[in-house]
């Protein structure tokens, strides 16, 4: 057996990757005329096309485990999270999932949307504790090892920020910019019910206040009833330990409720009779209505959908067949049906749903479509298992005004121009 097979010995071997880095640097540098480079690149491409032998077949590629933690192809470098504009501070900001570049329903961990209020702490799991106190018979402290000893549960769920889809989003054009604060992963942990029962919840308890170990000490109150239903204390995401940006080593995951409630870096749960009325459930995450009153404790994420192909910023390459594809979800449960309009909302066709169709989960839909080259407006609307139909923006603004900030789940239309360019039809 080759004694070097499982070791990365040839650190210095020139590789295709290094070669590639070199050529992108040259393009980025812009020293050579752009036109000249384009022809050179085209010539090089042609060398790799039939009937020629592609250059990458003529020498061995990168060594096995060249990247012990694998990375996407350098050709996918543009598929990244994105922060909109220039926030006043990056410690209280958000980054968005590139929905238009992803297939299926699972968001890769490095692309899950982020929303932080006090930066991303680096926490040593050996020094992390979860304390449960308040209206319980036995206040307890748990280590991460303790929590992993409990029976585990894994479920695939979407998570969405209630600020996803702005009421005043001018200048946003791509699915990522407009609706990238939604992601989906398989979350593994222990059912909160199991851990709460270990502590013995007292009969007058109604709320559980979750607090994070970040610089914002993020605090949200969650109804006890929900905590005893489907809430998970999650330590893993898509099979690996939760990423620091998602709350490493522990987050509370509250399915179907606004993402802010799934408090990251979870360090304590206080069981109470009343909510705590934290800043995040009074000043923020409350929805101002036209009469000056605000909806409070508006947790549920209602049925929503978006077409991801063709979507804003993309370009239809040709007339003829295209598969319209998108995502639908609802905090209330499963997606029952998705309807697509290719005539600006005049008529609707039922899209195909891709299995699996899971509760509180992104659901992929598809519709075969032939584009005749005419300007059109396309859009989708989700119907969930409660029969709820996703509203138009007009209906939503009529009911909620423009100052709610949170919980805009309106239909997103895309305009396709005669030249195939796709853009935000609400712009």
């Amino acid at each position, binding site marked *: 057996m080759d004694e070097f097979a499982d070791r990365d010995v040839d650190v210095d071997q020139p590789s295709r990757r290094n070669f590639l880095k070199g050529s992108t640097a040259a393009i980025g540098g812009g020293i050579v005329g752009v036109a000249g480079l384009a022809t050179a690149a085209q010539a090089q491409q042609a060398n790799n096309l039939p009937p020629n032998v592609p250059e990458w077949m003529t020498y061995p590629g990168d060594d096995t485990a060249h990247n012990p933690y694998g990375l996407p192809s350098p050709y996918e470098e543009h598929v990244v999270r994105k922060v909109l504009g220039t926030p*006043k*501070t990056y410690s*209280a900001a958000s980054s968005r999932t590139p929905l238009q570049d992803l297939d299926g329903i699972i968001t890769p961990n490095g692309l899950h949307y982020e929303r932080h209020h*006090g930066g991303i702490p680096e926490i040593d799991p050996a020094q992390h504790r979860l*304390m*449960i*106190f308040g209206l319980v018979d036995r*206040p*307890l*402290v*748990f280590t991460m090892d*303790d929590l992993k*000893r409990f029976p585990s549960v894994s479920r695939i769920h979407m998570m969405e920020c209630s600020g996803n889809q702005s009421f005043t989003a001018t200048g946003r054009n791509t699915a990522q910019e407009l609706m990238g604060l939604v992601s989906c992963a398989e979350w593994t942990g222990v059912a909160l019910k*199991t851990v709460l*029962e*270990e502590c013995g919840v007292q009969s007058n308890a109604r709320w559980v206040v979750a*607090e994070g170990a970040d*610089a*914002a*000490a993020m*605090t949200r109150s969650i109804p006890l009833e929900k905590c005893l239903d489907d809430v998970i204390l999650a330590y893993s995401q898509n099979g690996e330990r939760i990423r620091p940006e998602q709350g490493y080593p522990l987050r509370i995951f509250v399915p179907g409720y606004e993402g802010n409630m799934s408090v990251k870096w979870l*360090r*304590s749960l*206080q069981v*109470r009779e*009343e909510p*705590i*009325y*934290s*800043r995040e459930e*009074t*000043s923020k995450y*409350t929805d*101002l*209505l036209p*009469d*000056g*009153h*605000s*909806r*409070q*404790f*508006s*947790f*549920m994420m*209602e*049925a929503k959908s978006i077409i991801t192909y063709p979507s804003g910023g993309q370009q239809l390459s040709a007339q003829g067949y295209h598969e319209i594809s998108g995502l639908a979800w609802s905090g209330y449960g499963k997606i029952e049906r998705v309807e697509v309009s290719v005539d600006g909302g005049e008529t609707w066709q039922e899209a195909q749903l891709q299995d699996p169709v899971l509760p509180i989960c992104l659901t992929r839909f598809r519709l075969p479509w032939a584009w005749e080259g005419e300007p059109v407006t396309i859009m989708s609307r989700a119907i969930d298992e409660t*029969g*709820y*139909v*996703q*509203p138009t923006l007009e*209906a*939503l603004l*009529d*009911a*909620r005004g423009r*100052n709610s900030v949170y*919980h805009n*789940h309106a239909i997103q239309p895309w305009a396709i121009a005669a030249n195939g360019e796709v853009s935000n039809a609400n712009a």
Partner: protein
Amino acid sequence: MRMRDGLLSAAIVLASTAAALADYGIGTPATPEEIAGWNISIGRDGDNLPAGSGDTVAGAEVFEQRCSACHGESGEGGIGDRLVGGQGTLSDERPIKTVGSYWPYATTLFDYIRRAMPLDSPQSLSADEVYAVSAYILMLNGIVDEGTVLDADSLPAIEMPNRDGFVLDDRPDVGQ
């Protein structure tokens, strides 16, 4: 039938094992000191407010030194949110939501400043400093007078202008 009976009794065994394990015996009792150190949440009735006090004059100094760089000399906002003004604008076309115009409880102000501010070094203020700077921000909003001293008794007694401005979630209000 045999097979079914077998399955059934297997299921019963499983169920009773789970029941026997309902008390897992995992975790360590949390001591009162541990809880006191970590419980920084303040209820709207002032529950869990610490001892100490501070007035608007001391608060002006804390604000100047620790807050104004981000929130502006007089709370008009900057890197951090605007903290002052906007009362009576909530049903306007462009509402201004601040501590003074929007927040329902003064206790939340103490709770939030203590846990999260200043943004660059949270939990670095003493209880006296948090009382003082809370008093100062409320004074800038015309909610308390200059010289007001806040402590665990007087803070929860403050009536915030938007105290009754919140309604419970009554959705679905739109969609079918």
